[in-house]
Protein backbone atom coordinates (compact mmCIF):
# COMPACT_ATOMS: atom_id res chain seq x y z
CA UNK A 1 0.00 0.00 0.00
CA UNK A 2 1.50 3.26 -1.13
CA UNK A 3 1.63 6.34 1.10
CA UNK A 4 1.50 9.81 -0.47
CA UNK A 5 2.97 13.10 0.70
CA UNK A 6 2.93 16.55 -0.89
CA UNK A 7 5.46 18.57 1.14
CA UNK A 8 5.31 22.36 0.99
CA UNK A 9 9.04 23.09 1.33
CA UNK A 10 12.36 21.58 0.23
CA UNK A 11 13.27 20.94 3.92
CA UNK A 12 10.07 18.98 4.47
CA UNK A 13 10.83 17.01 1.29
CA UNK A 14 14.32 16.09 2.53
CA UNK A 15 12.96 14.94 5.90
CA UNK A 16 10.41 12.69 4.16
CA UNK A 17 13.09 11.28 1.86
CA UNK A 18 15.35 10.58 4.82
CA UNK A 19 12.53 8.83 6.69
CA UNK A 20 11.32 6.67 3.80
CA UNK A 21 14.33 6.07 1.48
CA UNK A 22 15.06 3.80 -0.29
CA UNK A 23 11.45 2.56 -0.61
CA UNK A 24 10.39 5.98 -1.78
CA UNK A 25 9.93 7.66 -5.16
CA UNK A 26 9.99 11.37 -5.90
CA UNK A 27 7.11 12.45 -8.12
CA UNK A 28 7.35 15.68 -10.13
CA UNK A 29 5.63 15.79 -13.53
CA UNK A 30 5.17 12.04 -13.41
CA UNK A 31 5.59 11.64 -17.17
CA UNK A 32 8.18 8.89 -16.65
CA UNK A 33 7.15 7.59 -13.23
CA UNK A 34 3.39 7.24 -13.62
CA UNK A 35 3.55 4.84 -16.60
CA UNK A 36 5.95 2.75 -14.49
CA UNK A 37 3.56 2.82 -11.53
CA UNK A 38 0.75 1.68 -13.83
CA UNK A 39 2.74 -1.15 -15.39
CA UNK A 40 4.11 -2.29 -12.03
CA UNK A 41 7.71 -1.53 -13.08
CA UNK A 42 7.82 0.80 -10.05
CA UNK A 43 5.99 0.12 -6.79
CA UNK A 44 7.41 2.42 -4.12
CA UNK A 45 6.08 2.27 -0.57
CA UNK A 46 5.98 6.05 -0.47
CA UNK A 47 5.37 8.73 -3.10
CA UNK A 48 6.64 12.23 -2.38
CA UNK A 49 5.17 14.82 -4.76
CA UNK A 50 7.52 17.79 -5.15
CA UNK A 51 5.32 19.90 -7.43
CA UNK A 52 4.18 22.08 -4.53
CA UNK A 53 7.46 22.10 -2.59
CA UNK A 54 8.66 25.48 -3.85
CA UNK A 55 11.12 24.04 -6.37
CA UNK A 56 9.47 25.44 -9.51
CA UNK A 57 11.49 28.65 -9.83
CA UNK A 58 13.83 30.21 -12.35
CA UNK A 59 16.04 33.05 -11.13
CA UNK A 60 19.40 34.70 -11.51
CA UNK A 61 21.90 34.57 -8.65
CA UNK A 62 24.89 36.79 -9.43
CA UNK A 63 26.52 35.29 -12.51
CA UNK A 64 24.45 32.08 -12.61
CA UNK A 65 21.02 31.09 -13.80
CA UNK A 66 19.35 28.83 -11.23
CA UNK A 67 16.57 26.55 -12.41
CA UNK A 68 14.59 24.79 -9.69
CA UNK A 69 14.24 21.04 -10.17
CA UNK A 70 10.46 21.26 -10.57
CA UNK A 71 10.59 23.93 -13.27
CA UNK A 72 8.69 22.54 -16.24
CA UNK A 73 9.75 22.39 -19.87
CA UNK A 74 7.09 25.01 -20.61
CA UNK A 75 8.65 27.34 -18.02
CA UNK A 76 12.07 26.85 -19.66
CA UNK A 77 10.56 27.56 -23.07
CA UNK A 78 8.73 30.71 -21.94
CA UNK A 79 10.83 32.33 -19.18
CA UNK A 80 12.63 35.49 -20.31
CA UNK A 81 15.70 34.73 -18.15
CA UNK A 82 16.19 31.37 -19.87
CA UNK A 83 15.79 33.03 -23.27
CA UNK A 84 18.43 35.64 -22.41
CA UNK A 85 20.89 33.58 -20.32
CA UNK A 86 20.56 30.05 -21.71
CA UNK A 87 18.87 30.34 -25.10
CA UNK A 88 19.91 26.84 -26.16
CA UNK A 89 18.07 25.37 -23.19
CA UNK A 90 14.94 27.33 -24.13
CA UNK A 91 15.32 26.10 -27.72
CA UNK A 92 15.53 22.45 -26.64
CA UNK A 93 12.55 22.87 -24.32
CA UNK A 94 10.53 24.60 -27.03
CA UNK A 95 10.97 22.28 -30.00
CA UNK A 96 7.90 20.12 -30.74
CA UNK A 97 10.44 17.46 -31.80
CA UNK A 98 10.91 16.50 -28.14
CA UNK A 99 7.38 16.33 -26.83
CA UNK A 100 3.88 17.74 -26.77
CA UNK A 101 2.59 20.80 -24.85
CA UNK A 102 0.58 18.47 -22.60
CA UNK A 103 3.75 16.67 -21.50
CA UNK A 104 5.93 19.79 -21.36
CA UNK A 105 3.45 21.52 -19.06
CA UNK A 106 4.19 18.92 -16.37
CA UNK A 107 7.58 17.31 -17.19
CA UNK A 108 10.42 18.92 -15.24
CA UNK A 109 14.11 19.59 -15.65
CA UNK A 110 14.90 17.64 -12.47
CA UNK A 111 12.91 14.68 -13.74
CA UNK A 112 14.62 14.75 -17.13
CA UNK A 113 18.02 14.55 -15.42
CA UNK A 114 17.09 12.08 -12.65
CA UNK A 115 15.52 9.67 -15.15
CA UNK A 116 18.95 9.64 -16.82
CA UNK A 117 17.84 8.58 -20.26
CA UNK A 118 20.84 8.53 -22.63
CA UNK A 119 18.53 10.43 -25.01
CA UNK A 120 17.43 13.15 -22.54
CA UNK A 121 16.88 16.29 -24.58
CA UNK A 122 17.69 18.75 -21.79
CA UNK A 123 20.96 17.03 -20.86
CA UNK A 124 22.96 18.03 -23.93
CA UNK A 125 22.14 21.77 -23.75
CA UNK A 126 22.95 21.75 -20.03
CA UNK A 127 26.27 19.97 -20.72
CA UNK A 128 27.13 22.56 -23.38
CA UNK A 129 26.37 25.29 -20.84
CA UNK A 130 28.67 23.75 -18.15
CA UNK A 131 25.72 23.26 -15.78
CA UNK A 132 26.05 21.90 -12.24
CA UNK A 133 23.46 19.89 -10.32
CA UNK A 134 22.71 21.09 -6.79
CA UNK A 135 21.93 18.06 -4.64
CA UNK A 136 20.51 18.26 -1.13
CA UNK A 137 19.78 15.77 1.65
CA UNK A 138 19.31 16.05 5.41
CA UNK A 139 23.02 15.20 5.61
CA UNK A 140 24.06 18.26 3.63
CA UNK A 141 24.49 19.78 0.23
CA UNK A 142 26.74 18.98 -2.69
CA UNK A 143 27.22 20.28 -6.19
CA UNK A 144 28.06 17.88 -9.02
CA UNK A 145 29.10 18.90 -12.51
CA UNK A 146 26.48 17.54 -14.92
CA UNK A 147 29.26 15.73 -16.77
CA UNK A 148 29.86 13.66 -13.63
CA UNK A 149 26.18 13.19 -12.76
CA UNK A 150 25.15 10.36 -15.10
CA UNK A 151 26.68 6.93 -14.50
CA UNK A 152 24.70 4.78 -16.95
CA UNK A 153 21.29 4.37 -18.57
CA UNK A 154 18.81 5.27 -15.81
CA UNK A 155 21.66 5.66 -13.32
CA UNK A 156 23.08 8.73 -11.61
CA UNK A 157 25.25 9.61 -8.62
CA UNK A 158 22.09 10.43 -6.59
CA UNK A 159 21.82 8.51 -3.33
CA UNK A 160 18.38 7.29 -2.21
CA UNK A 161 17.87 10.13 0.28
CA UNK A 162 19.10 12.86 -2.05
CA UNK A 163 17.06 15.41 -3.98
CA UNK A 164 18.04 17.47 -7.00
CA UNK A 165 17.09 20.95 -5.79
CA UNK A 166 18.26 22.93 -8.79
CA UNK A 167 20.41 23.14 -11.87
CA UNK A 168 22.96 25.93 -11.80
CA UNK A 169 24.15 27.39 -15.09
CA UNK A 170 27.04 29.87 -15.37
CA UNK A 171 26.32 32.83 -17.62
CA UNK A 172 28.85 31.69 -20.16
CA UNK A 173 29.49 33.44 -23.43
CA UNK A 174 29.25 32.27 -26.98
CA UNK A 175 26.56 31.05 -29.32
CA UNK A 176 24.89 27.74 -28.57
CA UNK A 177 22.79 25.54 -30.85
CA UNK A 178 20.63 22.46 -30.20
CA UNK A 179 19.80 19.92 -32.89
CA UNK A 180 18.01 16.61 -32.72
CA UNK A 181 16.90 13.85 -35.04
CA UNK A 182 13.95 11.66 -34.12
CA UNK A 183 11.85 9.15 -36.01
CA UNK A 184 9.35 11.91 -36.68
CA UNK A 185 9.41 15.69 -36.40
CA UNK A 186 7.29 15.81 -33.26
CA UNK A 187 7.03 14.02 -29.95
CA UNK A 188 9.90 11.66 -30.64
CA UNK A 189 12.69 10.19 -28.55
CA UNK A 190 16.03 11.33 -29.92
CA UNK A 191 17.82 9.03 -32.33
CA UNK A 192 20.68 11.44 -31.74
CA UNK A 193 20.80 14.94 -30.29
CA UNK A 194 23.54 17.49 -29.88
CA UNK A 195 24.17 20.86 -28.31
CA UNK A 196 27.25 22.87 -29.16
CA UNK A 197 28.63 26.16 -27.87
CA UNK A 198 31.25 28.26 -29.61
CA UNK A 199 33.03 31.34 -28.31
CA UNK A 200 34.67 33.15 -31.20
CA UNK A 201 37.39 35.77 -30.75
CA UNK A 202 38.89 37.65 -33.68
CA UNK A 203 37.51 35.07 -36.06
CA UNK A 204 38.89 32.04 -34.20
CA UNK A 205 37.39 29.57 -31.72
CA UNK A 206 38.43 30.48 -28.21
CA UNK A 207 36.16 28.01 -26.44
CA UNK A 208 34.05 25.09 -27.64
CA UNK A 209 31.60 22.60 -26.19
CA UNK A 210 30.15 19.64 -28.03
CA UNK A 211 27.63 17.46 -26.21
CA UNK A 212 25.90 14.42 -27.70
CA UNK A 213 22.93 12.36 -26.59
CA UNK A 214 21.59 8.92 -27.51
CA UNK A 215 24.98 7.71 -28.78
CA UNK A 216 26.45 6.34 -25.53
CA UNK A 217 25.24 4.99 -22.18
CA UNK A 218 25.05 8.58 -20.93
CA UNK A 219 24.78 12.04 -22.55
CA UNK A 220 28.38 13.17 -22.85
CA UNK A 221 30.83 15.87 -23.90
CA UNK A 222 33.30 15.07 -26.68
CA UNK A 223 36.47 16.76 -25.50
CA UNK A 224 38.68 15.47 -28.30
CA UNK A 225 36.41 17.10 -30.86
CA UNK A 226 36.20 20.30 -28.78
CA UNK A 227 40.01 20.53 -28.65
CA UNK A 228 40.20 20.30 -32.45
CA UNK A 229 38.44 23.66 -32.66
CA UNK A 230 40.52 25.76 -30.31
CA UNK A 231 42.46 28.49 -32.10
CA UNK A 232 41.00 27.54 -35.49
CA UNK A 233 38.93 29.54 -37.94
CA UNK A 234 35.40 28.21 -38.39
CA UNK A 235 34.99 26.30 -41.63
CA UNK A 236 32.89 23.56 -43.13
CA UNK A 237 35.74 21.03 -43.48
CA UNK A 238 36.91 21.61 -39.93
CA UNK A 239 33.38 21.15 -38.58
CA UNK A 240 32.88 17.95 -40.58
CA UNK A 241 36.13 16.52 -39.25
CA UNK A 242 35.08 17.61 -35.79
CA UNK A 243 31.70 15.84 -36.15
CA UNK A 244 33.44 12.64 -37.22
CA UNK A 245 35.86 12.88 -34.28
CA UNK A 246 32.98 13.50 -31.84
CA UNK A 247 31.23 10.30 -32.94
CA UNK A 248 34.48 8.32 -32.77
CA UNK A 249 34.39 8.98 -29.02
CA UNK A 250 30.84 7.56 -28.74
CA UNK A 251 29.48 4.02 -28.57
CA UNK A 252 26.05 4.06 -30.22
CA UNK A 253 23.90 0.93 -30.27
CA UNK A 254 21.27 -0.60 -32.54
CA UNK A 255 17.79 -0.30 -31.06
CA UNK A 256 14.17 0.15 -32.11
CA UNK A 257 14.73 3.81 -33.00
CA UNK A 258 17.82 3.49 -35.24
CA UNK A 259 20.97 1.50 -35.97
CA UNK A 260 24.37 2.32 -34.53
CA UNK A 261 25.61 3.02 -38.08
CA UNK A 262 22.82 5.56 -38.64
CA UNK A 263 23.46 7.26 -35.31
CA UNK A 264 27.17 7.52 -36.08
CA UNK A 265 26.63 8.90 -39.59
CA UNK A 266 23.76 11.25 -38.79
CA UNK A 267 25.35 12.32 -35.49
CA UNK A 268 28.54 13.46 -37.24
CA UNK A 269 26.50 15.47 -39.74
CA UNK A 270 24.35 16.90 -36.96
CA UNK A 271 27.40 18.12 -35.01
CA UNK A 272 28.84 19.71 -38.16
CA UNK A 273 25.51 21.42 -38.85
CA UNK A 274 25.16 22.67 -35.26
CA UNK A 275 28.70 24.07 -35.34
CA UNK A 276 27.96 25.72 -38.69
CA UNK A 277 24.87 27.36 -37.26
CA UNK A 278 26.72 28.47 -34.12
CA UNK A 279 29.52 30.01 -36.20
CA UNK A 280 27.03 31.59 -38.61
CA UNK A 281 28.55 29.83 -41.63
CA UNK A 282 26.56 30.75 -44.73
CA UNK A 283 24.56 27.94 -46.26
CA UNK A 284 24.07 26.01 -43.03
CA UNK A 285 20.58 24.44 -43.00
CA UNK A 286 18.24 25.87 -40.41
CA UNK A 287 16.78 23.58 -37.74
Amino acid at each position, binding site marked *: *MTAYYAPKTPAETLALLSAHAPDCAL*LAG*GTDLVPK*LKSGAAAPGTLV*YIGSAGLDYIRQEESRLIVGAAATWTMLAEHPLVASCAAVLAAAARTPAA*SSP*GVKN*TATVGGNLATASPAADLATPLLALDADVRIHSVRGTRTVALGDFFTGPGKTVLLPDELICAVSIPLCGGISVFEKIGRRKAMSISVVNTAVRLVLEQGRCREARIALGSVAPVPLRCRGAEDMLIGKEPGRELFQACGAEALRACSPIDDAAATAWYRRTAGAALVARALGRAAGLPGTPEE
Partner: protein
Amino acid sequence: MKYMLSFTVNGAPADVAVGPTETLLDVLRDRLGFTGAKRGCETGDCGACTVLVDGRSVRSCITLALTVQGKAVTTVEGLARDGKPHPLQQAFHDHGASQCGFCTPGMIVSLAELLEKNPEPCRDDARAAIAGNLCRCTGYVKIIDAAMAAARSPHKKGGPA
Protein backbone atom coordinates in the same frame (compact mmCIF):
# COMPACT_ATOMS: atom_id res chain seq x y z
CA MET B 1 -4.77 4.26 1.91
CA LYS B 2 -7.20 6.91 0.63
CA TYR B 3 -6.70 10.64 0.69
CA MET B 4 -9.27 13.40 0.25
CA LEU B 5 -8.87 15.24 -3.05
CA SER B 6 -10.61 18.61 -3.30
CA PHE B 7 -10.55 20.41 -6.62
CA THR B 8 -12.92 21.92 -9.15
CA VAL B 9 -14.10 20.38 -12.38
CA ASN B 10 -15.51 22.81 -14.93
CA GLY B 11 -16.03 25.33 -12.15
CA ALA B 12 -17.88 23.04 -9.73
CA PRO B 13 -16.19 21.85 -6.53
CA ALA B 14 -15.53 18.11 -6.18
CA ASP B 15 -14.34 16.12 -3.17
CA VAL B 16 -13.27 12.54 -3.77
CA ALA B 17 -11.38 10.01 -1.66
CA VAL B 18 -8.64 8.64 -3.92
CA GLY B 19 -5.69 6.28 -3.70
CA PRO B 20 -2.16 7.61 -4.33
CA THR B 21 -1.78 5.86 -7.68
CA GLU B 22 -5.20 6.69 -9.09
CA THR B 23 -4.95 8.95 -12.10
CA LEU B 24 -6.88 12.12 -12.81
CA LEU B 25 -8.43 10.29 -15.77
CA ASP B 26 -9.68 7.49 -13.46
CA VAL B 27 -11.28 10.05 -11.16
CA LEU B 28 -12.83 12.14 -13.93
CA ARG B 29 -14.30 9.21 -15.86
CA ASP B 30 -15.07 6.57 -13.24
CA ARG B 31 -15.91 8.64 -10.15
CA LEU B 32 -17.28 11.88 -11.51
CA GLY B 33 -18.77 10.79 -14.85
CA PHE B 34 -16.81 13.17 -17.08
CA THR B 35 -16.28 10.77 -19.96
CA GLY B 36 -15.24 13.44 -22.46
CA ALA B 37 -11.57 12.73 -21.75
CA LYS B 38 -10.85 9.40 -23.43
CA ARG B 39 -8.79 6.44 -22.24
CA GLY B 40 -6.40 5.80 -25.14
CA CYS B 41 -2.77 4.72 -24.85
CA GLU B 42 -2.60 5.19 -21.05
CA THR B 43 1.06 6.23 -21.36
CA GLY B 44 0.78 9.93 -22.24
CA ASP B 45 1.48 9.47 -25.94
CA CYS B 46 -1.86 9.74 -27.75
CA GLY B 47 -3.41 12.85 -26.17
CA ALA B 48 -7.00 11.52 -26.08
CA CYS B 49 -7.16 12.14 -22.31
CA THR B 50 -6.03 15.79 -22.47
CA VAL B 51 -7.65 18.18 -19.97
CA LEU B 52 -6.69 21.62 -18.65
CA VAL B 53 -5.28 22.07 -15.14
CA ASP B 54 -5.23 25.75 -14.17
CA GLY B 55 -5.46 26.52 -17.89
CA ARG B 56 -2.54 24.31 -18.97
CA SER B 57 -3.09 21.12 -20.97
CA VAL B 58 -2.02 17.91 -19.24
CA ARG B 59 -2.24 14.19 -19.92
CA SER B 60 -4.81 13.08 -17.36
CA CYS B 61 -3.87 9.40 -17.87
CA ILE B 62 -0.38 10.00 -16.44
CA THR B 63 -1.34 12.70 -13.94
CA LEU B 64 -1.85 11.31 -10.46
CA ALA B 65 -5.16 12.63 -9.18
CA LEU B 66 -3.75 13.89 -5.87
CA THR B 67 -1.40 16.27 -7.69
CA VAL B 68 -4.35 18.45 -8.76
CA GLN B 69 -5.26 19.17 -5.13
CA GLY B 70 -6.83 22.65 -4.98
CA LYS B 71 -6.56 23.17 -8.73
CA ALA B 72 -9.10 23.95 -11.44
CA VAL B 73 -9.64 21.20 -14.00
CA THR B 74 -11.44 21.88 -17.27
CA THR B 75 -12.58 19.01 -19.46
CA VAL B 76 -14.06 19.22 -22.93
CA GLU B 77 -17.49 19.26 -21.25
CA GLY B 78 -16.56 22.57 -19.62
CA LEU B 79 -15.66 24.50 -22.76
CA ALA B 80 -19.18 25.42 -23.84
CA ARG B 81 -20.51 28.78 -22.60
CA ASP B 82 -24.16 29.68 -21.98
CA GLY B 83 -25.35 26.60 -23.83
CA LYS B 84 -23.28 27.50 -26.91
CA PRO B 85 -20.42 25.31 -28.12
CA HIS B 86 -16.88 26.63 -27.84
CA PRO B 87 -15.79 28.15 -31.19
CA LEU B 88 -13.49 25.17 -31.65
CA GLN B 89 -16.37 22.76 -31.11
CA GLN B 90 -18.47 24.67 -33.63
CA ALA B 91 -15.59 24.77 -36.12
CA PHE B 92 -14.92 21.02 -35.75
CA HIS B 93 -18.59 20.46 -36.55
CA ASP B 94 -18.60 22.88 -39.49
CA HIS B 95 -15.39 21.52 -41.05
CA GLY B 96 -15.96 17.81 -40.63
CA ALA B 97 -12.96 17.63 -38.30
CA SER B 98 -14.30 14.62 -36.40
CA GLN B 99 -14.30 11.24 -38.05
CA CYS B 100 -14.59 8.46 -35.46
CA GLY B 101 -14.43 11.21 -32.82
CA PHE B 102 -12.22 9.45 -30.28
CA CYS B 103 -9.38 11.98 -30.52
CA THR B 104 -11.72 14.98 -30.77
CA PRO B 105 -11.96 15.98 -27.08
CA GLY B 106 -8.16 15.90 -26.71
CA MET B 107 -7.68 17.82 -29.96
CA ILE B 108 -10.16 20.50 -28.89
CA VAL B 109 -8.71 20.89 -25.39
CA SER B 110 -5.14 21.13 -26.75
CA LEU B 111 -6.22 23.73 -29.31
CA ALA B 112 -8.22 25.65 -26.67
CA GLU B 113 -4.97 26.09 -24.73
CA LEU B 114 -3.27 27.32 -27.91
CA LEU B 115 -5.97 29.93 -28.62
CA GLU B 116 -5.77 31.21 -25.04
CA LYS B 117 -1.99 31.66 -25.35
CA ASN B 118 -1.87 32.74 -28.98
CA PRO B 119 -5.09 34.20 -30.39
CA GLU B 120 -3.61 34.44 -33.91
CA PRO B 121 -1.85 31.15 -34.56
CA CYS B 122 -0.57 30.06 -37.95
CA ARG B 123 -1.13 26.53 -39.23
CA ASP B 124 2.28 25.43 -37.94
CA ASP B 125 1.42 26.75 -34.47
CA ALA B 126 -1.73 24.62 -34.55
CA ARG B 127 0.26 21.61 -35.75
CA ALA B 128 2.70 22.03 -32.86
CA ALA B 129 -0.18 22.35 -30.39
CA ILE B 130 -1.53 18.94 -31.45
CA ALA B 131 1.90 17.34 -31.91
CA GLY B 132 0.96 14.93 -29.15
CA ASN B 133 -2.63 14.24 -30.23
CA LEU B 134 -2.94 11.24 -32.50
CA CYS B 135 -5.86 10.90 -34.93
CA ARG B 136 -5.95 7.31 -36.20
CA CYS B 137 -8.45 8.35 -38.88
CA THR B 138 -5.62 10.72 -40.01
CA GLY B 139 -8.05 13.64 -40.27
CA TYR B 140 -5.37 16.20 -39.46
CA VAL B 141 -5.94 18.61 -42.35
CA LYS B 142 -9.56 19.22 -41.43
CA ILE B 143 -8.60 19.55 -37.77
CA ILE B 144 -6.12 22.30 -38.64
CA ASP B 145 -8.73 23.90 -40.92
CA ALA B 146 -11.14 23.93 -37.98
CA ALA B 147 -8.52 25.40 -35.65
CA MET B 148 -7.83 28.24 -38.07
CA ALA B 149 -11.55 28.90 -38.49
CA ALA B 150 -12.00 29.00 -34.70
CA ALA B 151 -9.06 31.42 -34.41
CA ARG B 152 -10.87 33.75 -36.82
CA SER B 153 -14.10 33.51 -34.84
CA PRO B 154 -15.03 36.65 -32.89
CA HIS B 155 -16.12 34.41 -30.00
CA LYS B 156 -12.84 32.52 -29.59
CA LYS B 157 -12.26 33.94 -26.12
CA GLY B 158 -15.29 32.06 -24.87
CA GLY B 159 -12.89 29.37 -23.69
CA PRO B 160 -12.09 27.80 -20.36
CA ALA B 161 -12.85 29.55 -17.11
